[in-house]
C-alpha cells in the first residue's frame, strides 16, 4: 500500500526555472553592460578632479534605477557622457525588469501551471490529514449534503468532482472544517489515490456521482486498491446494484428502491413508519403533513425507474394502481392498467380514474420538477382531499415544494445522503429497523407509545456501546471478574438506583447474532455491542455508569464506597479492626 501513496509528483520548480531562463539572462546582460559602462566612463568630483565609479557604486546606481526606485543619491554629479549612459541604461534595465515580471505573471496565469499547482496542493493537504476522513466522490446535491453532515459531526471530508462549478460552490459553503477538493474525474485511479484512497486515515469512500457507471468504477477501484476500506455507493438501477454487490461494495443505496420500500411500509405498517420517523433526526421520506399514505388505489405518474420500483412493490402488496406514462415502459406488460399521457392535464387524470371513490392518492414522480408540481396542482383542483406525493430532483427547488403543501416529498439526493450518513454513524440502527418490520404492527405501536411516554416525543439519541475496555471499562471489569450484569442494571440511574433512566436497549449483537428488544433481565457478556436509545438527558448518566467504577458499584450494589488510596487503606483498617 505504501508505494501507492508515492504518486508521480508534478514539480513546479523546474517549470518555473525553465520559463525564467530567457528573462533572467536578459536581466544579467542588461545589468552587466550598464554597470560596466558606468565603471568605464570617466567622471569628475565636485572639485573637478577626474574620478571613476567603481563596481560597487555602479551596481548600486544600476540597482535603484532598474527597479524604478530612483534615489537621487549620487556621490558626484554626472558628466554629460555619464548622463547619456544613464539614460540608455535606464531604458534597457527597466524593460528587462518588465520582461521578467511579465513572464512570471504569464506563467502564473497559465492553465497548465495552475492545474499542477492545485494538484500538488490538494495532494499535500490530503496527505497531511491527521484525522479520519471520508472520501466523497461527486459534489452534487447528495455530495453536498453528505459533506455538510460529515463535517457537522466533526469528521473530515475530501471531495473530488468533475464539474469545476461544483468545487467552487464547496468553497462558498460554510462548513465546520476545511474540505480539500479537486476538480477531476473521480473514476480515475490516479485522482482517487491523490484524494487519499490508500491513506491510513481514510474511513470510507462514498461514491455519489450522478453517473452509475462512474460509481461502479469508483467502487471497483476502491475495493481493489484498498480492500479494507468500506465503500458506500449510489446506484440508480438494479443491474448496477447487483454488479456493485458482486465485488463486495459494503453498502449500496438506490434512492428509488429505498423510497418505494418506505412508501409501501408506510401503507402496510404505519406504526413501524412512525417509529422510523421518531428515531431519525431527519427521516429519509419526510411526511410533510400529519397523514400517512392510506391503502387504496394509487395513480402513479412516473414512467422511469421510480415508477418501476413502486409498481413492483405495490403489486407485491396487492394494491390497485394505474400508471400514467406517455408510452408503455419496457418493464411493464400491456395488460396492466395504464393510461397514456403526462398527467399534467385534467383529462389524463380523469381517464386514470381520479374521480373514482377508491382512488386515494397521486404520486408525481417524473424526472422534471415542474411537471411534478403541475400534476399535483391539477390533481388538487380535481380532488383536493387526495394524498399528494411529489418527487423533487433538484435541491434548489425545495422552497417551492415546501410551499406546495404536499403530503410527502420524495427527494432522491436527500434519501441517499441520509441513508449513507446513518450507515456511517450508527450502522446498527438500520439493522434494528429492518428487524422491527417483522414484528406485528400493533405491538410496535404499543412499544412506540411506551417509549415516547418515557423518552419524550423529540428524536431520541441512538448510540452503539461495546462492552469492552475502551467504551465501558467498569462493565467490562465486572463481567471479566465473573459478576453478572443484566440489561436492566445498565439503565439504572447512578444518582438514585431505585429509578430507571429514560433509555432502552433496542438490540444486542453478540458474536454476529442479533437479539432484538432484550428484556431487562437479559444477562450481558463481555464484547456485546448494545444499541441504546435514550432521551438526550439520559445519555450522560449511562456514560457515567459504564465508565466510572464507583458509579457502577453503586448501581449494582447500592454501596457507596470511598475511593482513593488513603480512603481505601482506612477502609481496610476498619474492616480488619472490626473482624479482629
Amino acid at each position: 500500500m505504501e508505494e501507492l501513496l508515492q504518486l508521480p509528483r508534478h514539480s513546479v520548480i523546474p517549470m518555473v526555472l525553465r520559463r525564467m531562463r530567457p528573462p533572467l539572462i536578459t536581466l544579467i546582460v542588461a545589468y552587466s553592460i550598464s554597470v560596466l559602462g558606468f565603471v568605464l566612463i570617466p567622471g569628475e568630483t565636485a572639485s573637478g578632479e577626474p574620478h571613476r565609479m567603481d563596481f560597487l557604486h555602479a551596481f548600486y546606481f544600476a540597482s535603484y534605477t532598474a527597479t524604478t526606485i530612483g534615489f537621487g543619491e549620487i556621490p558626484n554629479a554626472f558628466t554629460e557622457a555619464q548622463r547619456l549612459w544613464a539614460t540608455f541604461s535606464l531604458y534597457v534595465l527597466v524593460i528587462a525588469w518588465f520582461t521578467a515580471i511579465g513572464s512570471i505573471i504569464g506563467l502564473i496565469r497559465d492553465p497548465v501551471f495552475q492545474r499542477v499547482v492545485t494538484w500538488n496542493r490538494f495532494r499535500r493537504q490530503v496527505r497531511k490529514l491527521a484525522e479520519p476522513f471520508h472520501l466523497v466522490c461527486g459534489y452534487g446535491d447528495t455530495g453536498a449534503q453528505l459533506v455538510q453532515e460529515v463535517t457537522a459531526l466533526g469528521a473530515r471530508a475530501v471531495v473530488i468532482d468533475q464539474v469545476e462549478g461544483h468545487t467552487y460552490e464547496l468553497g462558498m459553503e460554510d462548513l465546520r472544517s476545511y474540505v480539500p477538493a479537486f476538480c477531476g474525474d473521480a473514476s480515475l485511479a490516479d485522482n482517487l489515490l491523490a484524494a487519499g484512497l490508500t491513506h491510513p486515515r481514510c474511513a470510507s469512500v462514498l461514491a455519489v456521482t450522478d453517473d452509475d457507471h462512474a460509481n461502479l468504477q469508483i467502487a471497483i477501484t476502491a475495493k481493489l486498491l484498498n480492500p479494507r476500506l468500506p465503500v458506500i455507493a449510489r446506484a440508480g438501477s438494479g443491474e448496477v446494484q447487483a454488479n456493485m454487490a458482486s465485488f463486495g461494495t459494503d453498502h449500496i443505496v438506490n434512492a428509488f428502491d429505498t423510497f418505494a420500500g418506505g412508501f409501501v411500509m408506510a401503507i402496510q405498517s404505519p406504526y413501524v413508519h412512525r417509529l422510523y420517523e421518531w428515531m431519525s433526526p431527519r427521516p429519509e421520506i419526510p411526511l410533510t403533513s400529519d397523514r400517512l399514505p392510506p391503502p387504496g388505489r394509487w395513480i402513479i405518474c412516473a414512467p422511469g425507474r421510480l415508477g418501476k420500483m413502486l409498481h413492483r412493490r405495490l403489486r407485491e402488496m396487492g394494491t390497485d394502481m394505474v400508471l400514467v406514462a406517455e408510452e408503455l415502459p419496457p418493464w411493464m406488460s400491456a395488460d396492466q392498467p395504464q393510461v397514456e399521457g403526462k398527467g399534467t392535464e385534467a383529462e389524463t387524470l380523469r381517464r386514470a380514474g381520479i374521480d373514482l371513490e377508491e382512488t386515494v392518492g397521486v404520486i408525481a414522480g417524473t424526472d422534471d420538477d415542474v411537471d411534478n408540481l403541475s400534476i399535483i396542482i391539477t390533481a388538487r383542483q380535481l380532488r383536493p382531499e387526495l394524498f399528494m406525493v411529489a418527487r423533487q430532483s433538484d435541491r434548489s427547488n425545495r422552497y417551492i415544494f415546501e410551499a406546495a403543501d404536499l403530503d410527502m416529498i420524495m427527494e432522491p439526493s436527500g434519501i441517499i445522503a441520509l441513508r449513507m450518513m446513518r450507515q456511517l454513524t450508527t450502522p446498527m440502527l438500520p439493522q434494528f429497523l429492518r428487524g422491527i418490520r417483522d414484528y406485528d404492527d400493533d405491538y410496535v405501536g404499543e412499544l412506540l407509545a411506551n417509549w415516547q411516554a418515557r423518552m419524550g416525543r423529540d428524536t431520541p439519541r441512538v448510540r452503539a456501546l461495546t462492552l469492552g475496555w475502551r467504551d465501558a471499562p467498569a462493565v467490562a471489569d465486572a463481567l471479566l471478574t465473573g459478576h453478572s450484569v443484566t440489561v436492566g442494571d445498565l439503565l439504572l440511574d447512578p444518582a438514585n438506583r431505585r429509578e430507571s433512566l429514560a433509555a432502552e436497549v433496542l438490540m444486542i449483537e453478540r458474536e454476529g447474532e442479533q437479539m432484538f428488544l432484550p428484556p431487562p433481565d437479559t444477562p450481558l457478556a463481555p464484547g456485546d455491542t448494545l444499541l441504546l436509545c435514550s432521551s438526550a438527558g439520559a445519555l450522560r448518566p449511562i456514560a457515567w455508569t459504564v465508565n466510572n467504577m464507583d458509579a457502577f458499584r453503586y448501581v449494582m450494589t447500592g454501596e457507596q464506597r470511598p475511593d482513593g488510596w488513603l480512603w481505601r487503606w482506612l477502609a481496610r483498617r476498619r474492616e480488619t479492626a472490626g473482624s479482629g
Partner: protein
Amino acid sequence: MDSLTEGHERMNLEKVVFGFFILLALTLNFGFFLGDFDNPDHHNVYELYAALVVSLIATVLKFGERTQIGAVLLAASLVADLQLIAAALVWGIATQMTDVGLNSAVMASIVSLSGGALLANLASVTILIVETVGMHR
C-alpha cells in the same frame, strides 16, 4: 524517432551556447587566477567582473534541467557563483568600506576564492566533456 535523428545531423545551437558559456566562465576565471598569488597588479578587476557575469549566465542556462547531469552542472555552477560573489565582496569591502586597501593579504583571499570557483568551473567542463563523449557523436 524523427527528432532524434535530426539532432544527430544538425548542429544544436542551444548546445553551442551552453558549451560556450561554460567554457568562457572557465577561461575567464583562469585568466583572473593566473599570476602571482598576492600581487594586485597581476589580477584585473574587469576580468573578475566578466567571470562573475558569465558564470551567472551559465547558471541560468542550466535552470530547469531534469536530468541527473543537469542537476550536478547546476550545483557546480552555483558553487562557482557563490565563490566569485564572495571574492567580489571581499574586493569591494576592502577598497571601499575599510581603509585596508588592496594589500597582499586581501588579494590572496580574493584569488583563493576565485581559485575555488575555478575548480567548480573545471568540474562543470569535465562533466560536459564526459557527457558529450558518452554520446558517441
